[in-house]
C-alpha cells in the first residue's frame, strides 16, 4: 500500500466529496435493491422482501459514515467542521478573539521578522565556499588591541612569510565618477589586490578575473563590475566586456561581471572593483606604507584559526630580512585576527540579539495569554461540556471544540503575524543608521513562513489542549468537585504570575534602554549641532592632479557657500564627528616621558580651514584659533584637544610647545586648546584630537567636509548650497548631506531602535499581564459568588471582601515580580553592549518596574473587588 496512493486518493475524495458521497449512497441503494430481489425470489412479498433486506443492512447512515471514515481525509473533514464551528463561536465574542489574535500576531510577527533577519546575518555562513576559513587581519597598533588598517608593506610580508594562509588580499574603498552612458554618477567601489576574488572563492560570471599582470603599477586600467551595475547602466549587454568606460576621466576596460548572486559582504555597496596597482618595491615615502588597507585572507583547509594566529604573532615578533618595517608599521602590537563573519556581524549582533530575545519573550507572553484565555473559556463552558460528557461524548471529542477555537485564533494570529513580519522586515531594512549587513539576503522567505506556521500551530495545539486536560477530570460528571475548581484556579493564577514575570523582564530591559538613551542624549558632543548643515565634496580625475588645484577648489567652494543667503559661516574639515570617519595619526612630543608606556599615542587628525571652531561651535579653551593667516609656508601651528593637553603636557602650559603628528619630521607649534569632541560616537571615549591648518598639512586631502552654520533652518539652504558648489565646479560629487542634528540622532540609532522595540514589547506585556490578573480575579469572583454572599451574610465587611480580592492580585504580581526580577537579572547581561553608563542590574530600574507592576495589579483588581463587595447576602439564600 503506497503512501502516495493514500494521499492522492484522499485528496481526490476531499475535492470530490459530494460525488464520492453519491457513489456510496448509490452503491448502498443498489445493494438494497439486489437483496430485496433475492428475498422476493425466495417467495416473500414486495413489502416483506424490502423490510427483510433493510433489516439485514442496518442503518444506511451508519454504513455511509463507516465507509467515509476509511480514508485519512475524514479526520481532516471533521477538523474543518470543528474549525468552522470554532469560528462561529468566536464570532460571538469578537473582543476576546480580537485581543487574543492581535497579541499573538504581534508575538509571531516580531519573532518571524527577527528570524528572517537573524538567520542570514548571524546564523548562516557567508555566501562563499568554506566561508568559515575567511578571516580579517588587522594591525593591532603600537598599544595593541585597537585594530588599525594595514600597510601594503605589511601585507606583502604576511603573504610571503605565512604558511597557514592559502591566499590573502587587501582592499581600500574607491569612489570613481562614471562619465558617459547617461548622467555622471559616483559609484561605490573598491581597489583590491589581484587575488581578492580568489580569496573569496567567487569569480566573475562573464569575462575574467583580475590577473597578476593587472595588479602592477602602470598596468592598463581594468575593472570588474556587479551584475546590478551591468544591467542598470549597460543594459545587460555581454559585449560590454572589453569595452572602455570613463572613470574620473580616465579610460578603464571592463574585463568581468560578477554573478547576480554575488554578495560583497566586505563592502556591500561596492559596484565596481579595480586592481590596487601598488608598487611592490615599497618606496618609503609612498602610499604603500600608509595604514589604509583592509586585509582579508583564506586559511588553508589543513590549518586552524589559532594556528594562524600563533604563526602571525610570531611573524610580527620576528622582523626578518628582506622585509623592512618603518617605525609606524613595526607590528609591535601584533595582529588581530577575526573570522570575516564577525567583522560583518559584530556591529549589529548585540542589538539583534536583544531584539530577538525581546521578540521571543513577547511571543511567550502572548502564548501564555492565549492559554489563560482558553482556560477561562473552558471554565465558562464547564456545564455544557459536562452535559456532553454525560451524553456519552468521548473525551477526545470534548477536547476538540476548545482545540478548534485555539487553532483558529492561532492561525488568524499567525497570518496577521506574517503580514506584520513583512512590514517589520522592510522597516528594519530601511531603518537608517542601523546598517544591517547582508541586506540582499534578508527577507521573509519560505523558511521564515514555515517558522511562523510551526509557531502558530504549536501554540494553537498547546493552548487548545491545556484547558481540556486541566478540566477533564471534572468534566467526567456534571458539577465538578471543589478540588478540581481549586486546582484549575491555581493553574490560572500560575499562568498569570508567569505573564507578570515575563512583563517584568521586558519592562526591565525597556527601562534600562530608556535610561541609557537618556544618558546618551545628555552627553555633550563637544560642538553645537543646532543649525549646522554638512556635506562632503570630493575631487577626482585629471583636472585635480595637482594638490594646488584641489586646495583652490575647496577654498572657492567655501567662499561660494559663505555667500549663500542664510549662511552665518562656512568652514572645511578633513573629517567630521559622527560620520564614521576615524583618521588617526601617531602624535609625539619632544619629551614623550609624559605618556605612560603602552598608552596609545594616536590622535584624530583634523585638517581644517579658518572658522572651523566657530562654525562647529567647538569651544576654544586657551590660546588662539586657526585663522586665515596660517598659510602654507608659514610656521606650522596646531590646536589640541583638552585631553591631549592633559595627557601629553601635564603640569605645563601646552601653548608654544612642539607636537609631532604622523611622519617623524612633521612638527607643529601648539597655539590653542579646544574642548573634547565626540568623533566616533557619543558613547565612545577617545577624545584625543589635533587640528592643523589644511594649508599646512603636507599631503592634500582629496575629500573635504563643508560645514555650514546657518541663521535659518539648515535643511532649507541645502539646494542653494548645492547650487553654489556646482557653480564652482559642476563635475565634483556632493555626498553625505545631513545636518549635525541628524548625525547626532543617527549615532544613537541602534540604541533607539532596540529601545523602541523593547518599549513596544514591554507595553504589550504590561497590558497582557494586567488583563490576565483582571481575568482571573473577575472569574474567581463570579465562581465564588455564593461563598462571598455567605460571608457577607455572616458579617464580613465590604472592606474585607475587597481586601481579599486585592490581596490575590498583589500575590500574583509579587510572585511574578520576584521570578521575573531574577530572570531579568540573569538576562540583562546580554544588553550590556547597548547600555551606556548604567549597570544592567540598576536598582532604580528594577524597583521602578516592580512598583509599576504592583500598581497595574492594583488597578486590575478595582473592578472585581468592587463587584465582589456589591454581592448581596440574599443571593446566598436564593441560589
Amino acid at each position, binding site marked *: 500500500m503506497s503512501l502516495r*496512493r493514500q494521499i492522492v486518493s484522499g485528496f481526490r475524495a476531499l475535492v470530490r466529496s459530494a460525488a464520492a458521497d453519491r457513489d456510496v449512497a448509490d452503491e448502498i441503494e443498489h445493494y438494497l435493491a439486489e*437483496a430485496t430481489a433475492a428475498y422476493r425470489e425466495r417467495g416473500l412479498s414486495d413489502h416483506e422482501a424490502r423490510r427483510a433486506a433493510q433489516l439485514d443492512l442496518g442503518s444506511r447512515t451508519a454504513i455511509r459514515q463507516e465507509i467515509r471514515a*476509511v480514508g485519512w481525509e475524514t479526520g481532516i473533514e471533521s477538523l474543518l467542521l470543528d474549525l468552522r464551528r470554532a469560528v462561529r463561536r468566536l464570532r460571538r465574542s469578537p473582543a476576546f478573539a480580537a485581543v487574543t489574535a492581535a497579541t499573538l500576531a504581534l508575538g509571531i510577527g516580531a519573532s518571524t521578522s527577527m528570524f528572517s533577519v537573524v538567520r542570514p546575518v548571524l546564523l548562516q555562513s557567508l555566501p562563499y565556499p568554506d566561508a568559515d576559513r575567511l578571516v580579517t587581519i588587522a594591525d593591532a597598533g603600537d598599544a595593541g588591541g585597537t585594530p588599525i588598517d594595514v600597510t601594503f608593506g605589511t601585507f606583502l610580508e604576511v603573504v610571503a612569510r605565512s604558511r597557514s594562509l592559502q591566499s590573502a588580499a587587501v582592499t581600500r574603498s574607491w569612489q570613481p565618477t562614471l562619465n558617459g552612458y547617461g548622467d555622471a554618477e559616483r559609484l561605490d567601489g573598491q581597489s583590491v589586490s589581484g587575488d581578492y576574488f580568489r580569496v573569496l572563492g567567487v569569480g566573475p560570471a562573464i569575462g575574467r578575473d583580475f590577473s597578476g599582470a593587472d595588479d602592477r603599477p602602470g598596468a592598463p586600467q581594468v575593472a570588474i563590475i556587479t551584475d546590478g551595475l551591468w544591467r542598470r547602466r549597460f543594459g545587460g549587454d555581454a559585449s560590454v566586456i572589453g569595452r572602455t568606460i570613463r572613470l574620473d576621466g580616465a579610460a578603464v576596460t571592463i574585463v568581468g561581471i560578477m554573478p547576480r548572486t554575488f554578495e560583497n559582504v566586505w563592502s556591500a555597496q561596492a559596484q565596481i572593483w579595480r586592481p590596487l596597482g601598488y608598487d611592490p618595491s615599497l618606496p618609503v615615502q609612498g602610499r604603500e606604507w600608509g595604514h589604509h588597507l583592509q586585509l582579508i585572507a583564506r586559511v588553508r583547509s589543513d590549518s586552524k584559526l589559532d594556528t594562524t594566529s600563533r604563526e602571525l604573532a610570531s611573524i610580527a615578533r620576528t622582523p626578518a630580512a628582506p622585509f623592512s618595517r618603518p617605525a609606524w608599521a613595526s607590528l609591535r602590537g601584533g595582529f588581530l585576527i577575526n573570522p570575516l563573519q564577525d567583522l560583518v556581524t559584530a556591529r549589529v549582533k548585540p542589538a539583534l540579539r536583544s531584539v530577538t530575545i525581546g521578540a521571543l519573550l513577547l511571543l511567550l507572553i502572548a502564548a501564555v495569554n492565549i492559554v489563560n484565555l482558553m482556560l477561562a473559556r473552558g471554565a465558562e463552558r464547564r456545564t455544557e461540556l459536562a452535559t456532553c460528557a454525560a451524553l456519552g461524548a468521548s473525551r477526545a471529542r470534548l477536547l476538540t471544540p476548545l482545540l478548534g477555537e485555539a487553532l483558529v485564533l492561532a492561525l488568524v494570529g499567525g497570518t496577521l503575524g506574517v503580514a506584520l513580519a513583512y512590514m517589520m522586515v522592510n522597516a528594519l531594512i530601511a531603518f537608517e543608521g542601523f546598517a544591517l549587513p547582508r541586506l540582499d539576503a534578508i527577507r521573509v522567505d519560505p523558511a521564515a513562513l514555515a517558522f511562523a506556521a510551526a509557531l502558530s500551530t504549536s501554540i494553537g495545539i498547546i493552548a487548545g489542549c491545556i484547558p481540556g486536560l486541566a478540566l477533564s477530570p471534572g468534566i467526567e460528571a456534571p458539577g465538578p468537585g471543589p478540588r478540581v475548581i481549586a486546582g484549575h484556579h491555581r493553574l490560572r493564577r500560575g499562568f498569570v504570575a508567569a505573564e507578570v514575570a515575563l512583563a517584568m523582564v521586558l519592562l526591565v530591559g525597556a527601562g534600562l534602554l530608556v535610561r541609557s538613551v537618556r544618558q546618551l542624549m545628555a552627553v555633550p558632543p563637544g560642538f553645537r549641532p543646532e543649525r549646522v548643515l554638512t556635506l562632503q565634496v570630493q575631487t577626482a580625475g585629471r583636472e585635480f592632479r595637482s594638490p594646488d588645484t584641489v586646495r583652490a577648489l575647496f577654498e572657492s567652494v567655501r567662499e561660494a557657500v559663505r555667500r549663500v543667503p542664510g549662511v552665518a559661516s562656512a568652514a572645511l574639515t578633513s573629517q567630521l564627528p559622527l560620520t564614521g570617519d576615524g583618521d588617526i595619526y601617531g602624535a609625539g612630543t619632544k619629551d614623550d616621558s609624559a605618556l605612560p608606556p603602552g598608552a596609545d599615542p594616536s590622535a584624530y587628525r583634523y585638517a581644517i580651514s579658518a572658522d572651523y571652531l566657530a562654525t562647529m561651535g567647538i569651544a576654544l579653551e586657551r590660546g588662539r584659533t586657526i585663522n586665515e593667516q596660517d598659510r602654507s609656508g608659514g610656521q606650522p601651528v596646531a590646536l589640541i584637544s583638552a585631553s591631549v593637553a592633559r595627557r601629553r603636557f601635564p603640569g605645563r602650559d601646552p601653548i608654544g610647545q612642539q607636537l609631532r603628528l604622523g611622519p617623524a619630521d612633521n612638527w607643529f607649534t601648539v597655539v590653542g586648546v579646544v574642548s573634547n569632541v565626540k568623533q566616533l560616537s557619543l558613547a565612545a571615549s577617545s577624545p584625543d584630537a589635533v587640528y592643523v591648518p589644511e594649508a599646512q598639512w603636507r599631503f592634500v586631502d582629496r575629500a573635504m567636509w563643508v560645514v555650514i552654520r546657518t541663521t535659518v533652518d539648515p535643511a532649507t539652504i541645502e539646494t542653494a548650497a548645492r547650487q553654489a558648489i556646482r557653480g564652482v565646479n559642476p563635475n565634483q560629487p556632493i555626498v553625505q548631506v545631513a545636518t549635525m542634528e541628524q548625525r547626532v540622532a543617527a549615532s544613537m540609532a541602534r540604541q533607539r531602535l532596540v529601545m523602541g522595540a523593547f518599549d513596544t514589547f514591554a507595553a504589550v506585556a504590561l497590558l497582557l499581564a494586567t488583563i490576565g490578573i483582571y481575568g482571573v480575579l473577575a472569574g474567581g469572583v463570579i465562581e465564588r459568588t455564593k461563598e462571598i454572599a455567605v460571608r457577607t451574610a455572616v458579617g464580613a465587611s465590604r472592606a474585607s471582601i475587597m481586601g481579599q480580592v486585592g490581596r490575590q492580585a498583589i500575590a500574583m504580581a509579587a510572585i511574578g515580580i520576584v521570578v521575573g526580577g531574577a530572570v531579568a537579572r540573569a538576562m540583562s547581561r546580554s544588553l550590556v553592549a547597548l547600555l551606556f553608563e548604567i549597570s544592567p542590574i540598576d536598582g532604580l530600574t528594577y524597583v521602578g518596574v516592580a512598583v509599576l507592576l504592583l500598581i497595574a495589579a492594583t488597578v486590575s483588581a478595582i473592578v472585581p473587588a468592587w463587584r465582589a463587595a456589591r454581592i448581596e447576602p440574599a443571593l446566598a439564600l436564593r441560589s
Partner: protein
Amino acid sequence: MYFTKSEGSVADANTDVIQGTLDMLILKALSLEPLHGFGIGRRLEQLSGHVFKVNPGSLLTALTRLERYGWLESEWADTPNARRARFYRLTRAGRKQLREETTDWARRAGAIARILDAEG
C-alpha cells in the same frame, strides 16, 4: 490487515465471517470474476455452503478500504437485470495479496488443526 470490526456474536446456522478473514474472502471471490457488492456477499454464502453470512455494512466498508489499498478496482456498469451497479475487479496487487493471505491462512489453519488434534 485485520481492521475488520467485530461482526457480533457467532450465531448458529448463519455464522458471521471469521474475524479478520473478510478481506481474504472478498479477494478470493473476486479472483474468479468481477462482481458487485451484493454479488460478492451472495458468492461467499454460496461458496461457504451457506455457513457464512456476510454483514452488508462490513462488506461495503471493506470494499472501499481494499480499493483504497489498490487491491481492487471498481467501475459502474449494468447488471444482467439492467440495474446500475458498482463492479469490483481484482488488480495485480490484489492477486498477489490473495496469494500471500492464502498461504498465511493455510499455515495458521494447519497449526490450529494440529493443536486441536493433539488435544483430541
